[in-house]
């Protein structure tokens, strides 16, 4: 599944490296696990160290984001099945330009259930128009980095949510006819 291992081209890590080196105890050490800042001549190492120090001063990961990443632990879903992103209109060659009004279409799938989501920009917020396929009444919890809100679909599984802040979003869909496990759509930035 694409979500599980995002490497498309090489599953076997060992194939990345130019070869193996042998560690102290004779165990093979993968060459590609070495630091990419190693084996530099002293001048280059000093220059890279200067650059690293400068970047550390000017462009470190913002502490608030690091804390938010820790807090994202709260979004663990124990009971829901993950619905992978199976298509995204921005991947299919349809170039969206600044100011283009065409909504972006995302499709997620888990088993025999799909969630189709149309995302439109409204200023800095996003409007989501969605549908559950196979259609049925569903409670949809829209999760963002800031919190969540819930809507209930109509009989055809359609829903609409306005005012979603731009950024990562994931939906938890709980089926009100109680047939089937809840599903959670893979996080995607909109």
């Amino acid at each position: 599944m694409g979500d599980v291992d995002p490497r498309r081209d090489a599953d076997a890590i060992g194939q990345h490296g130019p070869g193996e080196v042998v560690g102290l105890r004779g165990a093979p050490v993968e060459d590609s696990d070495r630091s990419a800042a190693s084996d530099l001549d002293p001048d280059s190492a000093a220059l890279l160290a200067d650059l690293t120090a400068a970047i550390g001063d000017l462009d470190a990961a913002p502490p608030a984001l690091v804390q938010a990443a820790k807090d994202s632990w709260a979004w663990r879903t124990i009971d829901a099945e993950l619905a992978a992103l199976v298509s995204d209109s921005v991947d299919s060659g349809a170039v969206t330009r600044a100011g283009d009004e065409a909504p972006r279409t995302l499709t997620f799938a888990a088993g025999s259930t799909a969630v189709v989501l149309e995302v439109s920009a409204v200023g800095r917020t996003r409007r989501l128009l969605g549908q559950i396929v196979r259609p049925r009444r569903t409670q949809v919890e829209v999760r963002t980095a800031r919190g969540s809100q819930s809507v209930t679909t109509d009989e055809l599984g359609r829903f609409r949510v306005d005012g979603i802040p731009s950024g990562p979003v994931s939906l938890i869909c709980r089926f009100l006819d109680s047939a089937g496990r809840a599903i959670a759509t893979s996080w995607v930035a909109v």
Partner: protein
Amino acid sequence: MDERTTAELVLAARDGDRASWDLLVERYSGLVWSVARSHRLGPSDAADVFQTTWLRLVENVARIREPQHLGGWLSATARHECLRLLRTGAREQAVEDIGERAEADPSRADPSASPEAVLLASERRAEVVVAFGKLSRRCQSLLRLLATDPAPSYLEVSDALAMPVGSIGPTRGRCLQHLRTLLADSPLPGSST
């Protein structure tokens, strides 16, 4: 400093241990941020990539097949999110030039260093950042990623930039050489007197 390996922390997080999760975030935040910034995303888009990448890990932590290579998984995930955001095209702000920040934000001083040493160090860093801003995009991407503390592995760089492991070393050498040439050619005004 927690000495547990990344694989051990991943397995503990998989079993529900929040403290291990926090340690993973601390260990790899610099890398994930650098991947976003090495794709020339501005702060707001980089923040989206950063958050999305960690949320993806939350949802997939039980499915990671090679926990010892979490850094590669995070790098590749962040890269794909960067490309996705770049393709949407309509993001709000232009890429911020990190060189512009060199002057606005004086280096955080090491309190134990003498004032002269602090000044020299911050001048040197400003020079390096200004020269960095004149490099090619490809060199900026690679060096921005390498300038992460702790430095990424070859595998992580390869996954972050879709660059064969074998070409990282030679490209790194050329880019550092170019950076050195730029530094020699254009000292800051006043620094040569």
